[in-house]
């Protein structure tokens, strides 16, 4: 190697995965430098002021996917992580009629959909549905549990003679076999289905089906009738049960505070984090990644370069196609990275006036997806670059659990609003205000008078997310989570094991297995891969 490396590892991007990766590497004794373009750590997982005195988690607003073991190992609580709420309930809001409590407080994870006695007793859910819900939930939990071991593993390569790959495949098969023949056959039957048909098989209540179905398409480029949505749902449940005991949680101070704790964990291990330091490109010498060039022109050399950036940005912008063969570049070009989830933030002069919503429910997650047809219709528009007149939403009111986010007595509403197509036909310039009005009108139907409480509004479209957080396409998961962008073909064949065709260059972002959401598993798996496969300093 020409010049000697200054670091064992340089991590491009201080998103949560980059930080988890850096912390893991640092604690394993590697010298680590993290480079972040923006002035703060966290990437899209940050807390910021969007209206005077009102702060909100700009990206994901709930923490429910990060493995408890990972939280423990990184000692995040000793690094300042506090919880504003854990085991938050899930309630379905209905435009006509009382809300439906879908999952009670402290519902176990992987069982985020556990029936709540109150709800079962209430007129909203029939006894039959309540019974079906518990058997359905139990079954989905068993299936999800069978998938859990996939998460912490590097996806196997196909067709290699490498025994670790073969074993990984066998292990996968074995997990499923362990379910027993009856369950295995049922899993085989449903795993390729769409969530619409699955829920039609089990339940009567349109409201219940709508609520259960939303989790299958949140952040996905799908409607409930798209084949593969049972997989996305199982996947979410599997991640939740891998996450362990806390269920839907809200970090005190928002996702930003959570990432600050991650950053402290990394620096405590000796990692150096430089914010406001945009990387211009990846240095390649003799077909090997040997460091990075900053936009300032500064060169930083390292044994291993690990990119938290999305695959398209990493390969096409930072590395450059000239270092890759055309087939690989074509695959990268074809990664579907267009986001469909918008994020709406409201500054409110009081608690949002949701009709008939209990104080307990207001502390939790509110779903606005009255029926599967409703979701499907909302999705239909997105296929043609339009948005629906009544979008579906996942809503939280973080300031209820965490008053530090808003002035005394006032509140913040945070909603994931779908579907907001990245490539809106009319363009987001003119579409933005119409989208906001549409969302507010939709909310008004379940929270009469809400409009009059609004002091400030912020909408993040996928286009905004792309620009502000440097995520190509503005997709939560950096790339659609779907059968054809899954496991050993995620993000693309040849880079699905966190290694890339360029020795010394690794991926650690949501574009890799097992994907996005504030999970951190991609970062952790990538770190392990660097530790076993990467170069060490002499």
């Amino acid at each position, binding site marked *: 190697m020409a010049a000697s490396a200054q670091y064992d590892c340089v991590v491009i991007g201080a998103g949560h995965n980059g930080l988890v990766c850096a912390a893991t590497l640092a604690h394993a004794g590697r010298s680590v430098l993290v480079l972040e373009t923006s002035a703060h750590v966290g990437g899209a997982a940050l807390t910021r002021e969007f209206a005077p005195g009102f702060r909100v988690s700009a990206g994901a607003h709930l923490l429910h996917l990060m493995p408890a073991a990972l939280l423990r190992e990184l000692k995040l609580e000793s690094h300042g992580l506090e919880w504003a709420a854990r085991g938050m309930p899930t309630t379905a809001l209905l435009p006509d009629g009382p809300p439906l409590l879908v999952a009670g407080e402290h519902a176990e994870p992987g069982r985020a959909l556990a029936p709540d006695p109150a709800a079962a007793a209430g007129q909203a859910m029939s006894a039959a549905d309540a019974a079906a819900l518990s058997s359905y939930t139990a079954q989905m939990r068993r299936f999800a549990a069978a998938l859990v071991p996939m998460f912490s593993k590097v996806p196997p390569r196909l067709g290699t003679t490498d025994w670790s790959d073969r074993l990984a495949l066998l292990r996968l098969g074995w997990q499923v076999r362990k379910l027993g*023949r009856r369950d295995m056959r049922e899993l085989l039957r449903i795993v390729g289905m769409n969530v619409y048909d699955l829920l039609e098989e089990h339940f009567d209540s349109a409201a219940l089906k709508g609520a259960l179905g939303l989790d299958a398409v949140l952040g996905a480029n799908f409607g409930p*009738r798209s084949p593969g949505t049972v997989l996305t749902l199982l996947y979410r449940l599997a991640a939740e049960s891998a996450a362990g005991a806390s269920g839907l949680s809200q970090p005190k101070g928002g996702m930003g505070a959570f990432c600050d704790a991650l950053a402290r964990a990394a620096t405590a291990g000796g990692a150096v984090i430089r914010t406001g330091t945009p990387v211009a490109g990846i240095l390649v010498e003799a077909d090997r990644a040997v460091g990075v060039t900053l936009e300032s022109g500064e060169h930083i050399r390292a044994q291993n370069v690990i990119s938290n950036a999305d695959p398209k940005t990493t390969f096409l912008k930072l590395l450059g196609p000239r270092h890759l063969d055309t087939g690989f570049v074509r695959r990268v070009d074809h990664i579907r990275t267009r986001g469909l989830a918008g994020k709406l933030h409201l500054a409110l002069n009081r608690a949002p006036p949701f009709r008939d919503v209990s104080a307990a429910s207001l502390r939790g997650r509110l779903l606005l997806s009255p029926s599967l047809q409703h979701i499907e219709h909302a999705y239909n528009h997105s296929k043609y670059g339009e948005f629906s007149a009544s979008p579906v939403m996942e809503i939280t009111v973080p300031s209820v659990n965490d008053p530090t986010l808003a002035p005394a007595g006032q509140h913040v509403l945070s909603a994931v609003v779908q579907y907001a197509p990245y490539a809106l036909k009319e363009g987001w310039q003119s579409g933005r205000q119409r989208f906001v009005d549409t969302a507010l009108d939709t909310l008004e139907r379940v929270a009469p008078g809400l409009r009059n409480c609004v002091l400030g509004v912020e909408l993040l479209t996928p286009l905004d997310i792309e620009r502000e957080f440097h995520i190509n396409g503005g997709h939560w998961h950096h790339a659609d989570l779907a059968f054809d962008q899954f496991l050993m073909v995620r993000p693309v064949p040849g880079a699905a094991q966190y290694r890339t065709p360029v020795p010394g260059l690794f991926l650690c972002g949501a574009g890799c297995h097992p994907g996005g959401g504030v999970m951190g598993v991609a970062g952790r798996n990538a770190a392990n891969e660097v530790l076993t496969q990467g170069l060490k300093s002499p």
Partner: protein
Amino acid sequence: MQHPQDLDAIIVGAGHNGLVAGCYLARAGLKVLVLERQPYIGGAAVSRRLYKDFTYSNCSYVCSLLRPEIMRTLELPKYGLQIIPYEGGCTMMQGGGHLAMYDNHDALRREISRHSKRDAEAYERYSRDVMRQCKFIKPLLMREPPDPTSFKPRDIKELLYLGKRFHGMGEERMYDTLRFWTMSAADFLDEYFESEIVKAHFAGTSIIGTALGPRSPGSAYVLLHHYMGDIDDTVGAWGFARGGMGAVTSALGASFQASGGTIRSGAPVAEILVRNGRASGVALADGEEIHAKLVISNMDVRRTFLDTMDAKELPDEFLRQVRNFKIRGSSGKLNIALDGLPQFPAIPQGSPCTRGDMHVTDTIEMMERAYDDWKDGRWSRAPYIDMLIPSQIDPTMVPDGKHYMSVFVQYCPYELADGAWTAAKRQAFGDTVINTIAQHSPNFKDLILHAEIRTPWDIENEVGLTEGNIFQGELTMDQLLFNRPIPGFAQYRSPVRGVYMCGSSTHPGGGVMGAPGANAARAVLRDLGRSP
């Protein structure tokens, strides 16, 4: 007819798969009786005279998937089957103009490059990759899918075979295959082509007969399913059966009888009889009982197990999964007698592309919107149509100077959101289709002498296909290979000993392919300890 006790096997339904199964069993020396509800045989592969001297292929209308090994073994040409390949095909564009299809590779390349030079290049890659997938799947068509939930040596052997073939493609191709089987036709085509018209034309086969849109994951496979046609061993070649699709089943019927099989038409089976947990024969609607130790059902699984068998004889879990088997009506059909040849101004005079499949859907978005209508329980306001005028190539179907047009329509629901089908609604559906065609053919309406309009409801009632699904079950990834019809029962056997399935509900699915019938016969013979 034969004396009951001589019978070895009864086949319920004289569709092409029932007859194929019958042929193989009869050739193996079994005494086989085929029972058909209708007064004529053929199921959905029939030629019918419903108006004067016009012959309609009034259900299935193209011959492309029929396995050549079956055609050879059963000597179908000897029994009168003659297949004439399409001479072209095309998609007409809304604003005039068209994309023509030629079987001559270079001609096709030139045609595509009229729309996009880049796509003409991409077409090489595209056809190579599609061909590769066909080659991977072809040998699997005539095999019994393994049961991954079983430890039986045979299943493990077959799983290994599958794995070996898969492995044999090499690492890169394996990934391509994984993706191909699970992605949407729209995404698949986006990876090759830029021109809307080119994408729209190739996307067509991905929605035919399926309750999926071109953007639904899994539709790429359906696209390929239709490419598995095998005339003259050129993958994807399509053709007309001389005399209409009935020629296929009448040749099968003749071959079957020549090997000693018996056919009774106009004999509807009311129940498959089970005694002491195994098949004992069937009861006809008029009460007559016919006994045999083997009953092989050509009906779809829903009809076989829910309508024709006593639920007490079947496990609850099995029945639940059969009830949840997805078999949705999504296709309609018009059969039109024409006073002459309609003009299509978009197409140059004398171009061969009117002597093949003609389409008028020139964007994938149109197809997807047509699908959205179906999801909401409406027939597509701008339907995808696959129209053919076989009489240009096969004059035997019509009186001199007249023509027959077959129009396949996607999408048309089995149940309408606004209540049951009525004569008026059927007519309105027909008008929608006719107007769609008339937009591209000024003299079309004036030429119409007679039009038979068939909704999924009509198809169910006449042919007996549940919900009028032409494939006897959705070809979605959750219902393919060892999942077809349901996991654990993909090997043509049912939970009841002696009761078998041989219809398109089983692997490898629909289309006039005959593979399910042949595979079922092989399973029966193996269970009898005879080498097929």
